[in-house]
């Protein structure tokens, strides 16, 4: 058994050493930008600072990086359910991605404790004089109020932590003991887990983003986040995998055939996201009901429409056309470039979803909303590399380990 001896030879698939350097740099960048971001809160409004601005941007940064971590959780459960070589080779990266969730919880605290009045109109229900809006907020006060909002947030995080905890622990136990029953456990948890993932993602997206406009609602909204977060995570994971696959110890283990599969899935998620987002647009455009259409009008008028067009062309059309190419999907570096590009477009999309809510009718470039994601991103990536180094880069004792690696050597589809 050639493959087994690899483990006996004590090849433990340690993360490349450069990762420590990357971790330090990411931490440095994160810390610097965090300071800049906090300073921004005390700068005058005229130059784009201020406490309101601080929390608006905070929400953008938080939602973006939460999406990457949550997408990792969703994908981790998905690959436990479907099996397949693609899932096995990225499993450790996904697991490390989910273990950044505690950081996201820490970052959520300032938002929960200080941020709500700066973000949500339903926090000011009693002060609002506009009759129609007041009536809507009154009707929704049983759902949109700070106490229930925080209770729900606590439930979401509790569920996410529980899923993260068990999936990571069993995976580590399997490394240590080589017992295959852990695979069974992980698969068994992933079935109900994915249901919880979809439901919590839906309700979290309603609470944290949709309720910025308390009057508006759309039944597909949660699914747009499910697809979007998964796409963010997939883009991030592909970029990391390419970096890992071009140097020891994964060089020669993770190959073109694996990237081909990952590329196909990336294309599938791009299409899924576009399908959900376009369905919502078409139905609301066609129905043209004032309460509903207003949400899109806020995102199309006063220059925002250009961002919308950019999202259509660069978040969907361009990656879609490029990812159709077989050669491109098998070329790891090019695939990574597209993946990173999609990740950037995920940010643009989120900016377009959130920022127009605070700047209705006129486009605004907010430097704080760029600084914050970079700050959180630095911390996120540092945390991620720290976690990634704690375990072998491949689940060496998975029952399908050999098959998954073999797939890379033969799979030429």
């Amino acid at each position, binding site marked *: 058994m050639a493959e087994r001896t690899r483990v006996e030879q004590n090849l433990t698939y340690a993360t490349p050493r450069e990762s420590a350097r990357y971790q330090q740099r990411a931490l440095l960048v994160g810390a610097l930008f965090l300071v800049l971001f906090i300073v921004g809160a005390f700068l005058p409004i005229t130059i784009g600072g201020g406490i309101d601005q601080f929390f608006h941007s905070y929400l953008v940064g938080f939602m973006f990086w939460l999406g990457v971590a949550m997408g990792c959780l969703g994908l981790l459960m998905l690959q436990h359910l479907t099996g397949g070589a693609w899932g096995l080779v990225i499993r450790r990266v996904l697991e490390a991605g989910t273990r950044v969730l505690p950081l996201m919880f820490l970052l959520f605290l300032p938002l929960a404790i200080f941020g709500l009045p700066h973000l949500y109109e339903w926090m000011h229900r009693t002060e609002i004089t506009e009759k129609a809006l007041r009536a809507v907020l009154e009707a929704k006060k049983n759902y949109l109020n700070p106490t229930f909002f925080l209770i729900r947030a606590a439930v979401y995080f509790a569920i996410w932590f529980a899923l993260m905890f068990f999936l990571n622990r069993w995976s580590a136990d399997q490394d240590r003991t080589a017992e295959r029953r852990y*695979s069974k456990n992980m698969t068994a948890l992933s079935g109900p887990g994915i249901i919880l993932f979809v439901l919590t993602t839906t309700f979290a997206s309603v609470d944290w983003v949709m309720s910025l406009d308390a009057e508006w609602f759309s039944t597909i909204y949660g699914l747009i986040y499910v697809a979007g977060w998964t796409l963010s995570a997939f883009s991030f994971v592909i970029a990391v995998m390419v970096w890992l696959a071009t140097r020891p110890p994964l060089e020669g283990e993770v190959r073109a055939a694996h990237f081909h599969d990952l590329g196909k899935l990336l294309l599938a998620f791009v299409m899924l996201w576009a399908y959900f987002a376009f369905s919502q647009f078409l*139905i609301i455009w066609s*129905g043209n009901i004032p309460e509903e259409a207003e949400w899109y009008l806020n995102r199309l008028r006063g220059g925002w429409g250009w961002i919308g067009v950019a999202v259509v062309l660069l978040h969907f059309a361009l990656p879609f056309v490029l990812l159709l190419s077989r050669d491109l999907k098998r070329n790891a570096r090019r695939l990574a470039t597209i993946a990173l590009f999609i990740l950037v477009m995920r940010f643009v999309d989120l900016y377009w979803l959130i920022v127009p809510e605070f700047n209705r009718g006129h486009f605004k470039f907010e430097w704080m909303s760029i600084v914050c994601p970079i700050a959180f991103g630095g911390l996120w990536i540092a945390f991620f590399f720290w976690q990634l180094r704690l375990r072998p880069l491949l689940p060496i004792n998975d029952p399908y380990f050999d098959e998954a690696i073999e797939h890379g050597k033969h799979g030429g*589809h």
Partner: protein
Amino acid sequence: MPESDQPHDEVRVHETTPLIEPGHTFASVTDKISSLVLKRRTPLGWFIGFGISFMLFQLFMLAVTNLVFTGVGIFGTNQPVGWAMPIINFVWWIGIGHAGTLISAILLLLRQEWRTSINRFAEAMTLFAVACAGMYPVFHLGRPWLAYWLFPYPNTMGIWPQFRSPLMWDVFAVSTYATVSALFWFIGLIPDFATLRDRAKSRGWQILYGLLAMGWRGSARHWARYEMAYLLLAGLATPLVLSVHTIVSFDFAVAQLPGWHATIFPPYFVAGAIYAGFAMVLTLTIPLRKFYGLEDFITDRHLRNMAKVMLATGLIVAYGYMMEAFFGWYSANKYERFMIWNRMTGPYWQFYWALILCNIVTPQLLWIRRIRHSTLALFIISLVVGVGMWLERFVIVVTSLHRDFLPSSWGMYWPTVWDWSMFIGTIGLFLTLLFLFIRFLPIISIFEMRTILPQAEVEEEAA
């Protein structure tokens, strides 16, 4: 497989039951499947089944004749419910077809080998279901002989279709779907037609199957071109799984009516279609494989996999209902709130809760391993889901319409005997076509079954 001697089969998480029972050879597979068409005497049961189906089909003919002579007034459709049984049944049938396309195209692209023994059958089901679905819009026009007015063609009447209407998109989506499904099915059949041609004993059948085989000789070049064509068609058919039912959902969702105007409709309709389709495949496969002794080819593993797909799509449908209910309440819009409340407690409340019972509660049994392993349980659940998906369309169409914005025009809808006759009649049409298919064509793809035999794998490696 270098580790085949490893004793870890029993701890494998994923299925390891073979797709084809051991002991079969290339010849035995060919013999067994082709003999159903060529050698075995037509069983008595076939005549009984075909007879009943044909009688039901005559009911359809009767209903349609009356419809054409009398007019659409024979249906219960009337204000405020101006869109009832015909659209309900259209959506039900077209949804059922989706499983066939999913099995034949998407599972092919995903390299899911278990699709092999059920794809031919599922594709036939798709075609027949689309044929049944097509009856409704055509006959509901009232003057079906003018159905070609739906197409954009130069004419002196100044008639031009309204391209902003999803009903217009439906015309193209469904006709494309029917065309691609038929092509896909036929191309898949060509090598098997050749097998039947070579094995048929009588001159008449040799000529008929020979014509259908289109000169297939099985040369390497034939196979290379064939594989390419099949793969391209699969790629072409894949978007159709999504597009057809997405457009069907737009028929409702682009309107402003509460209960129809919901952005969740496209994915939830697509999932519902696949859900109903897999239920129908199970409903038909389970008796068929028993009757013809095909347990070697359509193994329990196939049934279990289909059960899992059913569970997954059923959960997406459940998510759809949940979002409708939640946002109906969250919206704080009085019309939305009334709609969902009326569905649950209004005059059609029995339909809503029966729908929840059939589509959401019952399929949860599929989480249990023992249920997934019981053929009888799967058969019953698949029937229940089939009924549930019909109820879903009834609830969406009727409960949304019967209480419209103007309380003075509120009313009730009940299908008339002609509504039911036409519906039961299309079931007859569907089963009639299915029985003919079983009798005259190989219901399992012979050549594809040969490729999943263990022997085929060995030869590939030796080459």
